[in-house]
């Protein structure tokens, strides 16, 4: 069995001759299924073999929902100020600047008006890539204005939540955005303009405790983490492990907090049906 014996020790290929798979060509889901990136995109970023929903941002959601990817973005240039001159291990100003450069986004939500299979819809989609999708003054104000727009033009609104909660670096200003968005939704409700909440992975904290839970219809993406307190905080508080499937979309459906779960691949068709139900 000498052909099993290793003659030369260690790795002998020089680094410069090493062959690497270029980044981004393949995507591997948590259960190990692999898909080509271009295929994944065609599939709305869902891994076909196991249904895993890869986290995506506002650009992808707009493309999935709006006809021919045509839309008018609202308040596109609003950016965060630093009202508290906040600094932890890093200055908030620098963090914002670096995040803007890295993500090419202005803040953690984008709002737009477009058509979904011919029907008008205002869509607000959150970007988790921007400081964990956290809600500070900009997110609150852009949502407030999108709701105003929806109210003034009598166009239904859909908010796609994806956020760790309120943004700590704006402290109480962030907290009050929960109140602001809820106040606007109260006005929208009185005007009987439909609001559809689509809750995606992950949605926790102040976003769950405000607009995410306030839809006339609450829909969730499969397998998303949705909760008020984060799992780590709960584990530390109760000093015990959490049950399997706790705080998932399916758990919330079972407990009665979402109306149904929508696979992203059916999102556009489902929204068309929802809009039709309100309209006719």
């Amino acid at each position, binding site marked *: 069995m000498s052909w099993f014996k290793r003659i030369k020790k260690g790795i002998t290929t020089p680094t410069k001759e090493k062959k690497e798979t270029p980044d981004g060509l393949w995507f591997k889901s948590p259960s190990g299924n692999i898909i080509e990136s271009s295929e994944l995109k065609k599939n709305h970023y869902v891994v076909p073999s196991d249904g895993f929903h890869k986290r995506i941002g506002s650009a992808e959601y707009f493309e999935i929902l709006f006809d021919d990817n045509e839309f008018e973005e609202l*308040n596109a*240039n*609003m*950016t*965060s*100020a630093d*009202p*508290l001159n*906040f*600094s*932890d*291990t890093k200055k908030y100003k620098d963090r914002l600047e670096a995040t803007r450069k890295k993500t090419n986004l202005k803040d953690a939500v984008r709002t737009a008006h477009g058509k979904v299979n011919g029907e008008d819809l205002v869509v607000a989609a959150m970007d988790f890539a921007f400081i964990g999708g956290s809600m*500070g*003054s*900009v997110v*609150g*104000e852009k949502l*407030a204005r999108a709701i105003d727009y929806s109210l003034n033009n009598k166009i239904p609104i859909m908010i796609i939540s994806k956020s760790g909660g*309120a943004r*700590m670096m*704006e*402290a*109480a*200003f*962030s*907290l*009050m*955005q*929960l*109140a*602001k968005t*809820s*106040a*606007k*939704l*109260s*006005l929208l409700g*009185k005007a009987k303009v439909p609001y559809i909440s689509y809750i995606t992975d992950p949605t926790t*904290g*102040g976003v*769950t*405790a*405000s607009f*995410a*839970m*306030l839809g006339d219809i609450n829909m969730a993406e499969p397998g998303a983490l949705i*909760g*008020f*307190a984060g799992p780590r*905080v*709960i584990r530390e*508080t*109760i000093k015990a492990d*959490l*049950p399997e499937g*706790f*705080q998932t979309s399916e758990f919330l459906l079972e*407990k*009665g*907090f979402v109306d149904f779960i929508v696979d992203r691949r059916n999102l556009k068709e489902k929204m068309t049906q929802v809009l039709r139900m309100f309209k006719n």
Partner: protein
Amino acid sequence: MPAYLDFEKPIAELEEQLDQAKQIEEKGKVDASQTIAELKKKITKTKKEIYNNLTAWQKVQVSRHPERPYTLDYIETMTNGDFLELHGDRNVRDDKAIVGGFGNVSGRTLMIIGQQKGINTKMRQYRNFGMANPEGYRKALRLMHLANKFNKPIVTLIDTPGAYPGIEAEERGQGEAIARNLKEMFEIEVPIITVIVGEGASGGALGIGIGDRVFMLENTWYSVISPESCSSILWRSWDHKEEAAEALKLTATDMLGNKLIDFIIKEPPGGAHSNKPEIIRRVKKEILASIEELEQLSSEERIQQRIDKYCAMGVYNE
């Protein structure tokens, strides 16, 4: 034995001297009245000095002082015992961390609702440390609708380290319960007065805190997160709570400066716990004055002003 915070040590020492002087006078029949008077003067002066220069973190400590008046103390004194406590959310159970009911305040029926902390170890557990479950927020909302129906002004007293983060709380929709309160408090037609009497931690506080007038007592805090949790998340250690307390701008002065609350109620020198009847008297006075003022408006005007006030909060560039 009264409890003293670490920075109150000079006060504690003087109080001890005062006790001794009093004992000497009683036992030895020596006239110590002059010493006693001087000590009393000195105590007041020291209290003022210390309490006029509290850091943000020290104020957080005062807000959690074990002898600080809690919601039921305010209710008991303001109503002179004429309080009808109402229990339960009519769905799951009665949450002991939030109390509420009709109270007679100077001849007027008010709906008073607030988080309640326990006064000793056993009661702290019973009250779940003032951390409400969803049924607590739902009870609060039920009582607000009741008040609205019978045109009784609402007073909410806030003192919570946060909404409870537990398995059952999540199962019963902690997020949904708070969200619904936020939205529906903007639809309540009667005046709503909110007073932060202790800790105002995040969504757990705001969940009963949408007010036409929002007051903070001088030595309380109100923010999106506690300084300890902020430190553990942003600095990845509990050691930066003092820095976090400064950075969060969570004191009454900061909150007023940022126009996130409407008024500050001054505490007696030495903090609310050093003179409970006085702080409760001040709170009662402000509540009644605010109600009178708010009743000059129609319910539509009140709701519009309430909405406009919160919608103006936030700082951004465009």
